[in-house]
């Protein structure tokens, strides 16, 4: 067996995680090197995919349906690229954000484990492997959530743990049904399956499990607390990347299993709408900056599901692209936003929105970064978020689903409203006594979030190549 890029992508972080755990003193170095190396591997893989359309590697030489096959196509590679790219920048941001030695020691192994899990999800082709990977992700993510060690974080982490494991177990139950019915678990098998009661049950269980893990309204109850109470880099990873793994599986599943029913699609869209509205209202009420950002994640996930449901059942062949664009956009922008929020909290000393304008120190660059990320989250041009929203609305209008358009517009207005609360806090000065240092609080640590934020804006101008890239090899049957 030769060591190819795909195997590297999967195992580099795993070995990195182990090494970082064993050698805590050099954990930081190991972590960074590993993440960079993973990025390199993803890059190599991307070149292959560009050449071949889709690449399949049977792991350990075992062929499907029994063995573990890894498969990379445009969409999975886009997810991988986002994960490793955002991960690299978050890692850089973490260098500054994690001051505590203990935090640093645990952060790197957990994060590398998380990376392993996510890479595994994006490369996996059979649903049991996906189950294992989402469990790995869940454990690592819970570890990251409680990294700060505060009581709130522990409570939130525990809640997250329950939800996450329950979601995974629902998925596992679904896997059991599938095996019972089909005798195989790979995507290709699913693709050829005839609809049946067992498959329907499996689908129901798996879907709900995934929805619970992605925190789609009303299953979002664990998310805001978990994301708001974690340390900044952890929040960035959790919000930007982790929920995307379950979303990715959701997209794949709905593509490979018998087409979801029209009513089901509508139900998912309706839940998305609920998320947009309820999340927006809660974000308006949020008192702390990170909580607001966390609620905005709920909103965005709702939006992604609306994108999925934008044109009903028949539109699903195209709708996944809009959803994928929104996933990418949100991943990059939300990571930037959480890192920036963390920077602001570090500099100002708190993140209570109402009192931001009393601060005498204004970390301008971090605030600017926050604003840039907000542009993408709100969906203003030319950001990637805008392109995603455009695709969503375009599809919905073309199919005559005007209610999705209306919901999207309301969501946009809501997001403007809650983010403008924050901006007002940044830009108001009359409540401060004494001069305000405009350029105070700049640090090298701002570079990582700023880069992410700029990427989230400028990627919008590259939407066409991204779109054609994620279509590469998406059809499973076409590949060798």
């Amino acid at each position, binding site marked *: 067996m030769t060591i190819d890029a795909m195997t590297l992508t999967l195992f580099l972080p795993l070995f990195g995680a182990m090494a970082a755990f064993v050698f805590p003193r050099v954990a930081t170095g190991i972590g960074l090197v590993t993440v960079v190396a993973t990025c390199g591997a993803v890059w190599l893989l991307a070149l292959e995919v560009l050449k071949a359309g889709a690449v399949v590697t049977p792991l350990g030489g075992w062929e499907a349906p029994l063995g573990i096959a890894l498969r990379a196509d445009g969409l999975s590679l886009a997810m991988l690229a986002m994960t490793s790219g955002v991960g690299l920048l978050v890692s850089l941001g973490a260098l500054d954000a994690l001051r505590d030695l203990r935090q640093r020691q645990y952060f790197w192994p957990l994060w590398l484990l998380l990376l392993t899990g996510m890479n595994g999800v994006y490369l996996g082709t059979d649903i049991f492997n996906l189950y294992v990977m989402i469990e790995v992700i869940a454990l690592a993510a819970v570890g990251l959530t409680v990294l700060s060690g505060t009581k709130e974080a522990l409570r939130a982490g525990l809640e997250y743990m329950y939800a996450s494991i329950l979601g995974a177990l629902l998925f596992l139950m679904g896997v059991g049904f599938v095996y019972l019915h089909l005798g195989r678990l790979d995507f290709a098998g699913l693709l050829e399956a005839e609809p049946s009661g067992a498959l329907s049950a499996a689908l129901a269980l798996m879907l709900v499990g995934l929805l619970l893990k992605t925190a789609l309204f009303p299953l979002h109850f664990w998310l805001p607390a978990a994301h708001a109470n974690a340390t900044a880099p952890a929040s960035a990873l959790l919000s930007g990347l982790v929920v995307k793994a379950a979303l990715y599986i959701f997209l794949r599943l709905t593509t490979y299993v018998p087409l979801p029913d029209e009513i089901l699609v509508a139900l998912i869209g309706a839940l998305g709408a609920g998320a947009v509205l309820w999340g927006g209202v809660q974000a308006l009420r949020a008192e702390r900056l990170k909580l607001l950002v966390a609620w905005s994640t709920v909103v965005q996930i709702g939006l992604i599901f609306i994108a999925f449901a934008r044109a009903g059942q028949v539109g699903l062949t195209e709708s996944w692209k809009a959803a994928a664009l929104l996933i990418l956009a949100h991943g990059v922008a939300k990571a930037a936003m959480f890192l920036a929020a963390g920077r602001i909290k570090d500099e100002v000393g708190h993140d209570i929105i109402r009192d931001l304008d009393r601060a005498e120190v204004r970390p301008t660059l971090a605030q600017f970064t926050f604003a840039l990320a907000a542009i993408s989250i709100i969906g203003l*041009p030319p950001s990637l978020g805008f392109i995603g929203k455009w695709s969503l609305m375009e599809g919905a209008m073309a199919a005559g689903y005007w209610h999705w358009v209306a919901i999207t*517009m309301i969501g946009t207005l809501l997001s*403007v409203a809650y983010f*403008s609360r924050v901006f007002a806090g940044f830009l108001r000065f*009359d409540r401060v006594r004494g001069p305000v240092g405009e*350029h105070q609080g700049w640090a090298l640590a701002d570079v990582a979030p700023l880069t992410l934020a700029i990427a989230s804006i400028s990627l919008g101008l590259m*939407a*066409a190549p991204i779109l054609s890239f994620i279509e590469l090899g998406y059809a499973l049957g076409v590949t060798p």
Partner: protein
Amino acid sequence: MTDMPLLPLFILLTSLLASPILFALPERAANLRTSINLGVAAIKVALVAWLGWKVSQGVVYDVRFTVLPGLDFKLQADPLALLFVSLSAILWLITTVYSVGYLESGSHRARFFGFFSLCVAATVGVAMAGNLFTFLIFYELLTLATYPLVIHRGSAEALRAGRIYLIYTLAGGLVLLLGTLGLWIVAGTTDFVPGGILADVAAEQRLVAQMLFVVLVGAVGVKAALFPFHAWLPIAMVAPAPVSALLHAVAVVKAGAFGIMRIVYEIFGIETAQALGMTAPLAALAAITIIFGSLKAITQDDIKKRLAYSTVSQVSYITLGVALASPIAAVGALAHLIHQGLMKITMFMAAGNLAEGLGVKKVSQMNGVGRAMPGTMLAFTAAALAMIGLPPLAGFVSKWYLAQGGLDAGAVWVVALLLGSSLLNAIYFLPMLYRAWFRDGTETEAAPARQRIGWMLAAPPITTALMVLAVGGFANAPFSPLEWTRFVVAIEYQE
């Protein structure tokens, strides 16, 4: 170097790239900041001049790359774009000088100039956008970049104004997004093409086309301060004077008016719009705005608010000229785009000088300011008289064409409207001039802190006032705005 296909992009980038540099400069590096500001502004004017020369030579610029399948980011430099680009480039240079002087002792200068340049980039982008999609991008960018300027002072009042501003403009932007999407779905393209792209659609699906018209024009109407979407403009006057001057008198409202032009002429096509029966309601709306704005202006005591309402009124001249569907009126509308910009920027800068030099912010405090600041007030006077429409000042020329256009379109009421509006203009401007020149200032009112204003504050309004004189006085000269306008109208009406 004879042909540079990316010239429009460079013009856009000059101010776009200057902005991060300006952000990053420390607050104390005033000299460096000033040099960068002025340098970039001057380079931009030079590039625009070059572009103008090239375009008049018949060179066609078309910079594009694909964003989504079939949907391009597209910059073009057609004569209409050039009209607006040159206006913003030249006024940017002048306003930069003014802002440097104005903010000499102010705070947050790095931020101010950073966003200021971003605004100009957005304006230039709006001007050169080759399709509605690109237009939308820059239109939103303009909103975002102006918001920090509106709330620059950072007070509670400024923030309130900023919030209202944001709500209006972003809601407008959202509706524009909706309209753009609708257009994209219905027509399959969003390109600006003289003569319009919707003739077929309008013939087949009249109602769709009509709704599209309402949505699109309504959306840009927010920035153009069309009644009843005008409320943000007077409120946004809490911004510092250069912002009010360049942005609210020129960039933002003009972006709206310019958008109306693009949409009516190059998305629908004037004939189609007329056939849809949409031009008459638009003209009526513009007429209401003209009268309403003037009436509101009369009751304002705050100088900047009065000017703001006057802007509401005056910008609708442009809309009116477009909506009359007569080439002559179109000449008036386009010329007014330039003329109104020059006049209003002069007045706002003069108002800023009054506030800076004398602490005068209200009309009732203006007694005798003419003697205290003769240069500034001369400039103000020239602009005010031009607004009223006295020849040979700029405002007269556009009003003349609008009136002729109204007669040409068979709408005699337009003449009456223009008369009424001029009368109202006179009612709110002449008392200001009267107080400034013919009343003696009392010690308590006009001379609390008579600080000298530097040349950087004094020169810009005088310069623009001279331009007001020049564009009116030499309206018939080659390369004058009016001449260029006629050229543009010939294209739009495909004569």
